[in-house]
């Protein structure tokens, strides 16, 4: 990392405590915030390190949205390029680097889903998923918890604790970018019920994460 970036990174103050934790860092490894400052100072090595740290998480998120390996790889590259280009807009006052990257990646993935006209194909796949495993987050949890890291296992536990119908509504809203009306149409559920499911489910997750924040 450039000397200037390192100097700036050392004086950076930590942000407000949030819910979730990034992967455990090796002792002496730069923090996410230090890497963001490095990227803001146009240090490619900082981007390289950030990529190594988060490409797996961001690709999983993209794949969850678009269900296509090759498109996910292309989008991942575009997203990291956007992180490089838009880093100047990142502010630690507004949250952590990972949150900023996830928000950006999700938006791009949902945009990509629609723009590339893959929506219809994904909808067919999604319909199959809904029919076969309406509670996908629950479905994978048991076997995965054996191998997942602590953070992921805890987050899964929190998500799995809410009713499947609420999980499904959140899944469609967050990972597919669907509006309440779209979810209502997709699941043949009254609009008011969809709203209630989203509100209750998100509140339960939010409250549970707050309680768990010291463990995450």
């Amino acid at each position: 990392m450039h000397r200037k970036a390192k100097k700036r990174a050392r004086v950076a103050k930590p942000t407000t405590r949030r819910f979730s934790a990034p992967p455990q860092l090796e002792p002496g490894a730069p923090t996410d915030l230090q890497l963001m400052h490095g990227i803001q100072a146009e240090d490619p090595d900082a981007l390289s390190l950030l990529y190594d740290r988060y490409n797996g998480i961001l690709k999983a998120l993209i794949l969850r949205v678009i269900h296509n390996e090759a498109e996910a790889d292309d989008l991942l590259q575009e997203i990291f390029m956007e992180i490089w280009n838009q880093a100047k807009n990142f502010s630690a006052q507004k949250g952590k680097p990972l949150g900023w990257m996830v928000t950006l990646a999700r938006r791009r993935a949902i945009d990509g889903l629609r723009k590339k006209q893959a929506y219809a194909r994904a909808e067919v796949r999604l319909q199959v998923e809904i029919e076969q495993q309406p509670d996908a987050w629950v479905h994978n949890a048991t076997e995965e918890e054996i191998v997942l890291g602590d953070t992921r296992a805890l987050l899964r536990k929190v998500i799995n604790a809410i009713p499947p119908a609420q999980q499904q509504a959140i899944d469609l809203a967050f990972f597919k970018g669907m509006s309440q009306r779209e979810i209502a149409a997709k699941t043949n559920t009254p609009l008011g019920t969809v709203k209630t499911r989203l509100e209750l489910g998100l509140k339960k997750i939010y409250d549970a994460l707050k309680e768990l924040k010291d463990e995450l």
Partner: protein
Amino acid sequence: MNFEQFQNQSPLYVIGALEPEELEEFEKARKKFGKKAEDYITECYGLHEAFALSLRPAKASAAIKQRLMAMVRARK
């Protein structure tokens, strides 16, 4: 909208699930409650991280990083 209602709507806002008419009301309340509203919204964005971190990481093609870094270095 009171602050409790604002708090109930905030998670829906951060995941983009508010309908247009709800969004208008929400933005009015956001202005009305000022900093405490902004702080609450910022906290709700933690849901994005939580949902992403709840997924099993996927492996990206090695060529992606090579292409990315080549593009970045070429633009510098």
